[in-house]
């Protein structure tokens, strides 16, 4: 993006700092005129007061705390009924300074039931799609959501619980003590899985039961067990119902999950497989070991093995056991259709917890050959680029699974959709460029979500941009490092214009469920804002350091927007409040016009020279149109007696009196004044107008008649920042 032209470090210029707008509804008011201070500081007025838990520089405070929630889960997949039956033991450690008499858990799959989400769903247009009808038909016979069979304490006594829309409150006989108190609860439940292509959502199954298909299914499980809601220093319980947009806000903890599935299934899950010997053949285990040091992805389950498995249907079961440390969620996928490939990715950071990360992909034959070629390599590329911008990947595996879900992220595992197409008539296999770049892009995006929000654990239910925006920014970086010509959907400044000028939009600082134009708002605009911040406002050096600082500070913690804003400013020393105000707090767009250029010279003080300049300027003006169209002779032309002194001189005629006066005033000049009067350079004055209202650096390229150009812009790295 950066061209080699010399950029003058002039004081940057901002157009129209003062513009008419409604005054803030706060104590400070300018009541004398319509007034908006676009450079007004956010600290002290709009941002929350710093605390011992999160400090004024944007870092976790000296008494920062967060809860720890560990899960021990056993779950069985019934392939005939497509239902999960589970039992979990939750160990809740209360590190907060408050004792807690009840716990809130999340039952997000209940959004598919008689929920706020379903009841408030609206329709538009005047047609009904086939999928809509199928969905309505499905809901007549299928009730989604959890059935909570029991909630007990560790000694088996039933606990009172209440389901509130997508939330579950468990009342405890005794409060969990503050500052490290612990409690255990045991929950049993069943959950019918969603047929994803009909019901929709971020998980579910897909069956290949069409003509010429093998009849098998892929199961992708997510939000499949009751998970603890976050309890934080700034919001208490994060118990806002799931409406379908604001995704998941979760606590860190350690997981041990035993997944019982048909014995011919292959399972991919958050964490590391603990019992490979019980579920994989010796040859498969050997291939997995070889993949660790291979230079190309190695098949752990070969395409031939997968096709062979598709032909049977096991009556027996196997249990796959996974363990994951310090994760905020757990997802998994299971199918006898899966091909599995793997590649060890060496991390560049010598302090990386896992010097080699296993990048692995799981996909049916229908996804081949695109997935063999691009999925695992895209994972490897993601880990490299994202870690360059943030920190070494702290988990042992990173996985991409093909199934019905178009693109969705969980710790160490992601569900991704794009496949080649097989022509129904001819059987010809082709793939579109959209599928190819869509696959690479979505794998980068969903694997990238490990960094934001799986590790830098922001609150998705509240702020979409904090994970989708930051992640889309890094996705754009990774795509441009994959291929300079990568057809990136989000990140390029020129591509955001259509959204920025649109009417039906809300500021980025809007709660997720209230966001309209979700993609451009949650993803594209914040991604573009960060590109502009990096390339145009701060420069790469300052931006990259500050961004890394934010990522590192909030790694395995819960940041808020203010922690991000404060860190970016404190780490770089650049005041960015005007930038946050414009891009994150407003719906202004960028449109700065160059209205006028004036070329100034300094009056030489020589009356003859100055008169000549004035005369030459006058000569450029056309004469009176009326006078020029008159064909008859004028009085002055016809009658010589009317001509006098004033016909022989004009306003540019210089007389000795003026020369004498100029000479005497020159004698009064100091040497400094004389030198100034002799200054011959041009003083160019450029007049700008800020039409869009968004405050931005003014970058001005000036072309000169000798063929040279100069670009004046704010310093890109270090130094000052645009002022009025």
């Amino acid at each position, binding site marked *: 993006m950066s061209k080699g032209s010399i950029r003058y470090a002039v004081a940057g210029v901002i157009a129209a700092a003062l513009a008419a707008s409604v005054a803030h509804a706060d104590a400070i008011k300018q009541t004398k005129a319509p007034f908006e201070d676009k450079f007004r500081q956010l600290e002290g007025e709009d941002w929350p007061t710093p605390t011992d838990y999160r400090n004024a520089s944007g870092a976790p405070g000296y008494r920062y705390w967060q809860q720890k929630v560990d899960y021990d889960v056993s779950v069985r997949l019934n392939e005939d009924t497509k239902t999960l039956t589970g039992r979990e033991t939750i160990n809740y450690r209360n590190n907060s300074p408050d004792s807690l008499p009840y716990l809130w858990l999340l039952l997000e799959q209940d959004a598919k039931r008689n929920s706020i989400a379903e009841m408030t769903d609206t329709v538009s247009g005047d047609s009904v799609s086939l999928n809509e009808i199928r969905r309505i038909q499905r809901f007549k016979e299928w009730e989604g959501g959890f059935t909570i069979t029991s909630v007990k304490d560790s000694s088996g006594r039933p606990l009172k619980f209440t389901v509130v829309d997508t939330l579950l409150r468990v009342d405890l006989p005794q409060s969990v003590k503050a500052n490290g108190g612990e409690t255990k609860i045991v929950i049993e439940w069943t959950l019918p899985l969603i047929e994803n292509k009909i019901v929709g959502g971020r998980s579910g199954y897909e069956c290949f039961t069409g003509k010429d298909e093998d009849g098998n299914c892929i199961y992708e499980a997510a939000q499949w067990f009751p998970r603890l809601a976050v309890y934080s220093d700034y919001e208490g319980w994060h118990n806002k119902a799931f409406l379908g947009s604001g995704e998941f806000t979760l606590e860190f903890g350690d997981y041990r999950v035993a997944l019982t599935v048909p014995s011919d299934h292959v399972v991919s899950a958050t964490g590391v497989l603990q019992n490979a010997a019980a579920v994989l053949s010796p040859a498969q285990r050997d291939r997995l070991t070889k993949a660790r040091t291979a230079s190309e992805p190695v098949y752990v389950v070969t395409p031939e093995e997968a096709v062979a498995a598709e032909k049977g249907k096991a009556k027996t079961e196997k249990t796959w056991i996974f363990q994951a440390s310090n994760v905020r969620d757990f997802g998994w996928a299971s199918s006898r259709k899966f091909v599995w490939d793997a590649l060890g990715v060496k991390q560049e950071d010598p302090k990386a917890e896992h010097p080699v990360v296993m990048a692995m992909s799981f996909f049916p034959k229908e996804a081949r050959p695109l997935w063999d070629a691009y999925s695992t390599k895209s994972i490897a590329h993601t880990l490299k680029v994202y870690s360059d911008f943030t920190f070494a990947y702290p988990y042992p595996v990173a996985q991409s699974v093909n199934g019905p879900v178009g693109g969705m992220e969980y710790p160490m595992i992601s569900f991704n959709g794009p496949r080649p197409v097989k022509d129904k008539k001819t059987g010809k296999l082709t793939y579109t460029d959209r599928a190819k770049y869509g696959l690479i892009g979505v794998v980068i995006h969903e694997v990238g979500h490990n960094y934001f929000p799986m590790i830098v654990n922001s609150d998705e239910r509240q702020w979409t941009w904090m994970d989708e925006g930051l992640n889309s920014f890094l996705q754009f970086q990774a795509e441009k490092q994959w291929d300079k010509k990568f057809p990136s959907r989000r990140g390029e400044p020129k591509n955001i214009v259509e959204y920025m000028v649109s009417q039906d939009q809300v500021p980025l600082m809007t709660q997720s469920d209230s966001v309209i134009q979700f993609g451009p708002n949650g993803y594209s605009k914040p991604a573009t804002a960060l590109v502009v911040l990096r390339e145009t406002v701060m420069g790469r050096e300052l931006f990259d350091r500050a961004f890394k600082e934010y990522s590192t500070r909030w790694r395995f913690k819960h940041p808020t927007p203010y922690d991000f804003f404060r860190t970016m400013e404190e780490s770089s020393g650049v005041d960015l409040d005007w930038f946050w105000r414009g891009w994150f707090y407003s719906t202004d767009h*960028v449109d700065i*016009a160059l209205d006028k250029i004036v070329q100034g*010279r300094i009056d030489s003080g020589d009356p003859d020279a100055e008169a000549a300049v004035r005369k030459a300027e006058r000569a450029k003006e056309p004469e009176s149109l009326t006078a020029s169209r008159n064909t008859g002779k004028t009085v002055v032309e016809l009658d010589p007696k009317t001509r006098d002194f004033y016909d022989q001189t004009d306003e540019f005629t210089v007389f000795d009196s003026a020369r004498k006066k100029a000479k005497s005033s020159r004698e009064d000049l100091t040497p400094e004044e004389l030198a100034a009067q002799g200054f011959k350079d*041009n003083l*160019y004055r450029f007049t*700008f107008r800020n039409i869009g209202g968004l405050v931005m650096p003014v970058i001005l390229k*000036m072309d*000169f*008649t000798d063929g040279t150009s100069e*670009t004046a812009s704010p310093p890109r790295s270090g130094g000052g920042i645009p002022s009025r």
Partner: protein
Amino acid sequence: MTWQHVSAKQLKGAELDPLWETADADRGNNVYEGAITPTTFKISKPPETSNRMKDADLEVGRDSLATRPGGETKKAEGSK
């Protein structure tokens, strides 16, 4: 608002955001190829501060605040 740039060279035209990096919504008003308006600046001098003592044709000496009639200005003092 107006911004100034000084150069010995003769300007031909100018363009805002030439690398398309700011998401400017209307590129139609970014390029200036119109007439550059010439102007001549006189070097402005700060206005003289009002000086009632001088207007009254009085002066003081270095050793006292007491005023006395001004008379002829002595240019010699302070210079060589």
